Each structure stands twice: as C-alpha cells, then as structure tokens.
C-alpha cells in the first residue's frame, strides 16, 4: 500500500464511528428536507456549504416557516455559537497549518472537534498532524454529504431499518470522554461538565442547551484560572 493511501486509511479508521452517526443523521436531514417540496439540490448543497448537523435541521424549520434572512442569520449564528469555544482551544493546534487551515476551521463540527482534541498530543504540531486533521475533517464531511444524498434521493423508501444507528455518536462521545479522563487524570473538567450540563437541562430550553452548558463551562474555567494562576512574572 502506498504511504498516501496508508495515511488516508489511518484517518478513515478514526472517522468510522462518525460515519455510523453521520450517514443516518445526514439521511434523516435529506428526508426531512424533501418534505419541504423544494428542489432536491438544496439538501446536498447545504451539507456541502453549511455543514452543521443541528444547524441544518434548524434551517429546515426556518425554510418551512418562511423566515426572513436576518432571522435566519441570527438563528444560525446563535445555534452554532458553541463553536466559538472550540476555536479557543485549537488556536495553537491549528497554527502553521497553511493552506489546509481554512478548511480545517470550516469543517469543525462537534464530532470533528471531538476526534481532533482526542487523537494527538498537543505538542505534536508537524505537517503530518495537520494533514491528518484535515483528512479527518474531509472524511467526516464526506459521510455527512453521502448520508444527505442517500436521504434526498431514496427519500422515505430506504429499506434498511437503521433505527438506533445514530447511537454511534453517543457512544463516540462516551469513549472520547473516557479517553480524555484517562489522559488528564483530573476531576475538574468533568465536575464542571456535570454541573453545567445538568444545570442547562434543568434551566434552559432545548435549543440553547449546548451553548449554555459550554459557555458556562468556559466561564467556570476562566474563574478557576483567575483563582489558581501560577505567577507568570517569574518567566519573562
């Protein structure tokens, strides 16, 4: 096997759990979109350019309600604003990624972010790391677009009973949490997640859950930083 093919294969294996989640979810989006009675190409186009799971389901709702463009912009921005915090923790990781960087940023979904922050050591910033990260992003989007096409073209006539396949994403998040815990060996971020996650479920409406929980977690980490900051003046 050629080295190039080998490294694509390496990336593909890492994205397999995302594939199990994105194919059925993308198909569900395609089916939902087709019920609007709009031209079929809108669905794959959205998966190519918007590329946001929850965001595209929201878009279907907005299309169905004939929302105005300003409302569409604000709603999309609000729903996806949790991504603001993802970039914060990847600034260093993506530095020096060159021509791949814009695509790496564009393809930063929940699942891509999860895979990227779990796979490599943060110090490991060579070109190989960036290439792998870009390929993981591209393969994840490929699964999403393929799923969308399946749902759009086959519509509700899909014969396979795929109910429950999307649990793969839940399983992926569980596995990645265990891996993060094994690596970090500190309770702090998990206690913060438990507090803000359960708090958000109790207090916030469904569409603001993720943003609320992740925003609150970032805020608590900021407070923790202010309280426990090591004196930086020593090392100028």
């Amino acid at each position, binding site marked *: 096997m050629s080295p190039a093919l080998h490294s694509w294969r390496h990336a593909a294996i890492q994205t397999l759990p995302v594939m199990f989640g994105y194919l059925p979810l993308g198909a569900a989006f395609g089916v939902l979109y087709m019920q609007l009675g709009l031209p079929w190409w*809108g669905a794959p186009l959205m998966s190519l350019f918007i590329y946001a799971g929850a965001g595209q389901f929201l878009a279907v709702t907005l299309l169905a309600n004939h929302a105005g463009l300003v409302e569409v912009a604000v709603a999309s921005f609000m729903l996806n604003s949790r991504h603001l915090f993802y970039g914060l*923790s990847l600034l260093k990781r993506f530095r020096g990624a060159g021509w791949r960087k814009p695509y790496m940023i564009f393809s930063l979904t929940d699942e891509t972010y999860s895979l990227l922050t779990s796979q490599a050591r943060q110090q490991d910033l060579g070109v190989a790391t960036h290439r792998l990260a870009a390929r993981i992003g591209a393969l994840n989007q490929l699964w999403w677009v393929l799923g969308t096409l399946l749902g759009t073209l086959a519509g509700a006539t899909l014969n396979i009973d795929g109910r429950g396949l999307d649990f793969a994403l839940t399983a992926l998040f569980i596995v990645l*949490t265990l891996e993060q815990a094994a690596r970090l060996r500190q309770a702090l971020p998990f206690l913060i997640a438990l507090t803000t996650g359960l708090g958000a479920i109790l207090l916030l409406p469904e569409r603001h859950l993720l943003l609320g929980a992740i925003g609150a977690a970032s805020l608590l980490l900021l407070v923790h930083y202010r309280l426990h900051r090591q004196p930086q003046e020593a090392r100028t």
Partner: protein
Amino acid sequence: MSDLELLAFIGVCTLATFLTRVLPFVALSRQADHPLILHLGRYLPPAVMAILVIYALRHLAPWSAGQLNVSPQGVPLILASLAVVFLHLWRRNALLSIVGGTGLYMVLIQLVWP
C-alpha cells in the same frame, strides 16, 4: 420560493455558521500562547466531551418522556451506554466499544422494545 431565494438562504446560513467557527482564529490568532488560552485548551475539550455525553443522553425518560428513539423507560439508552463504558474499560478499543454499544442499542429498540 425561487431558486435564487433558496441560494440566498443557503448563503446566509453558510456565512453565519462559518463565522462562529472562524471568529476565534481571526480575533485571537496572536494570543495562542497566552496562559489563559493554554488553560482553556487543556481543560475545555474534556469538559465539552462530557457535556456532549450529557446532551446526547438528555432524552432519558426520567427527564423527558416520549422522545425520538427511546423506549418509554429509557432502558435501552442506559444499557447501551453502560455497555460502551464496560467494553471500553475492558478492552480499550474504541471501535469495539462503539460498534458493540450501538449494535446492542439497535437490537434493544428494534427487537426487544419495538
């Protein structure tokens, strides 16, 4: 809705979504080595991962009933999640844990509690 209106709609969604992803890189590109950014880079990913787990399990029956893909008792979700945890602590093979847990979940919701 005309084709042009649909294209405009998709364009606006695309820009708004990309903006949320690119803003930190544009606004804070010079701050990548700031201790606060390093602090967030260390602790935010595990916190987000755990929040995504809690989010994915939010339809568990005790909290909200009658949601998509969940039996009234939420038992399949609990069993399959436990299976993922046990498989992963046992073999530490990500693919095995995910395929095993998802397979169990599909069997439970399609055959045991249809």
